[in-house]
């Protein structure tokens, strides 16, 4: 088994995929470098083949990230994929150009309830669809 960090090219792809997924934009090179460094610092332990397969699948099929993240939140919340997306989230949150995407936002009570409900429904739907895809992804080549 190899460590969860991955090679440089894969990490650059992951950084872009996770950034687009979380905040809808590509990260600047500086944040991609930081994501690489963070991976090399945090994911030093050998990881399960299925974890690597899941991350590799998303690298090849970026459209699947929302589904597989949602499914992992239920099936494997502390797995490699969740760790990597969280790491990119932390990096984006602590950069001035993306800070606003993470700072609290005020909303009218009715809007808030509606938005939270809608987001909850979307998250559950993604988790259901994602769990179907999850079985395929973890059996794919890493």
């Amino acid at each position, binding site marked *: 088994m190899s460590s969860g960090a991955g090679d440089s090219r894969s990490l650059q792809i992951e950084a872009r995929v996770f950034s687009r*997924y*979380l905040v809808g934009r590509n990260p600047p090179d500086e944040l991609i470098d*930081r994501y690489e*460094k*963070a991976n090399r*610092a*945090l994911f030093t332990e050998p990881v399960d083949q299925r974890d690597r397969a899941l991350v590799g699948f998303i690298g090849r099929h970026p459209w699947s990230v*929302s589904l597989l*993240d*949602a499914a992992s*939140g*239920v099936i494997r*919340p*502390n797995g490699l994929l*969740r*760790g990597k*997306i*969280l*790491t990119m*989230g*932390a*990096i984006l*949150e*602590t*950069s*001035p150009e993306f*800070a*606003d*995407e*993470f*700072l*609290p*936002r*005020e*909303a*009218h*009570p009715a809007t*808030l309830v509606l*938005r*939270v409900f809608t*987001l*909850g429904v*979307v*998250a559950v739907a*993604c*988790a259901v669809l*994602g769990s179907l895809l999850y079985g395929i992804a973890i059996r794919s080549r890493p």
Partner: protein
Amino acid sequence: MTDVIVVGSGPGGVNAAAPLVEAGRSVLLIDYGNEDRRYAPLIPHQPFSELRRTDRQQHRYFLGDEFEGIPFGPVRVGAQLTPPRVHILADAAERTPVDSDDFAVSMSLARGGLGAGWSAGVFPFSDAELRDMNLTVEDMRPHYDAVAERIGVAGERDDLEALLPSSPSMMPALDIDSNAEVVLARYRRKREALNAAGFFLGRTRLAACTREHRGRGPHAYLDMAYWADMDRSIYRPQWTLDELRRAPNFTYLDRRFVDSFIEDGGRVRVHAAHADSGAKESHEAAVLVLAAGTLGTAWIVFRSLGCYDTPVPILCNPYAYVPTLNTGMLGREARDRRCSLAQLTALVRMPGGGGRLVQAQLFSYRSLLTFKLMKELPLAYRESLRILRLLIPTFAILGIHHEDRPAPGKSCCLRRGKGGCADRLEITYRQTIEETRATRTDERTVIRFFRRLGCLPLKTVRPGHGASLHYAGTFPITSRDEKLTCDVESRLRGTEAVYVADGSVFPWIPPKGLTFNLMANADRVGTLLVERLR
């Protein structure tokens, strides 16, 4: 000739040293003294929301150069120990190894000890809570007042006054944040019924300066209290240490690890090793005050007296977090100008519990960053982020503290290292079934009261035994003449001139937070020693 050696620069050490130094006694304070030199200089003196949008270096202190600020897994002990605070725990686990399966141990070799990350709550004990130490509030009042003046305390004389007596030097409370303001307004409308049911709510007394005091403050409301001490308005023991170091009769010796002491011919000799070179040295004085933190002091006492395999009690307030949704904040804008520390304190008298109290503090959430909450939700991160951005202004986090008393399953002892390995502390901590049941029941009661104030609980997080970091009870003050206890003067029995001035001496801990009380007891020890040395 040194009159007194104090070991440790935490809340106990500096407050024991202060009255001695003021009285002209020569004091040597020996300390390991780790400091954060890496992150503190990077943090700009700007409000949290402003620096988030402008500072390109923020990732260094928010996440850490080794990304140590990105936690995985469930909420653990010391969630508030951010990268600029991580030095507080550095080196301690290597210097004083501890074995425990069921107790999270956080020891400190930092300048200021665990007090360098203190959440600054000031909760003086009542007569009932001091009784087991053969002390009364009247005995302690001069020391509570002296410490309150030394550290600077801000608060209000409100419904908590009867349960938490204030000191004459108390400054006006810090400005309340929007979240707490709503909860407090609801409480005031229902006060009569809530008080009759045993629930009292008020502003948290904080060791913080709302006006300039001893060269510190006033508080600047930057919402950076978990990251930096820029205006020094929130008390840290280092501020008292800085004052002491200006006195000619005070010597500070850092980079030393104290290993043991020996009494010899009316003097106490302290054996220490240099932190960097490992060179052994010894220092001598008429009196020794141990204030190395409960576990650090246990290590020194066990080794000095050769007490291997001899269990003593260990205590730590059980603790739980309850994130709640404050419905009163729906549709309201949260003020940006705020302080990250506890806003409100509730004291709840438990029904049928013989006057047993439980304490809860209410915090708002923002400056510990959103990504740390994202991992707590079992949802896709993108949706979690969008939900949290909407809900964070309405989050009120309750921190619930319970009392802790000695029990057969809670013990600490020193095991001799084998094959050239270092000695190891061994801690066992198991609550009785009755204690576990009582804490769960008490949490439900507290949550019920907050529900009446519009705070809907989302989940209860129990970070595990040891999480509150309020370690105590190893060498308790008691009237019983037993080995490994202290007399009412805080002198360690079996010694002539070794005093203990940290959490070790408290025979049980009320649900209130110990730090202010151990500082007052340390001040009492220092004051008693001024008399003794006269």
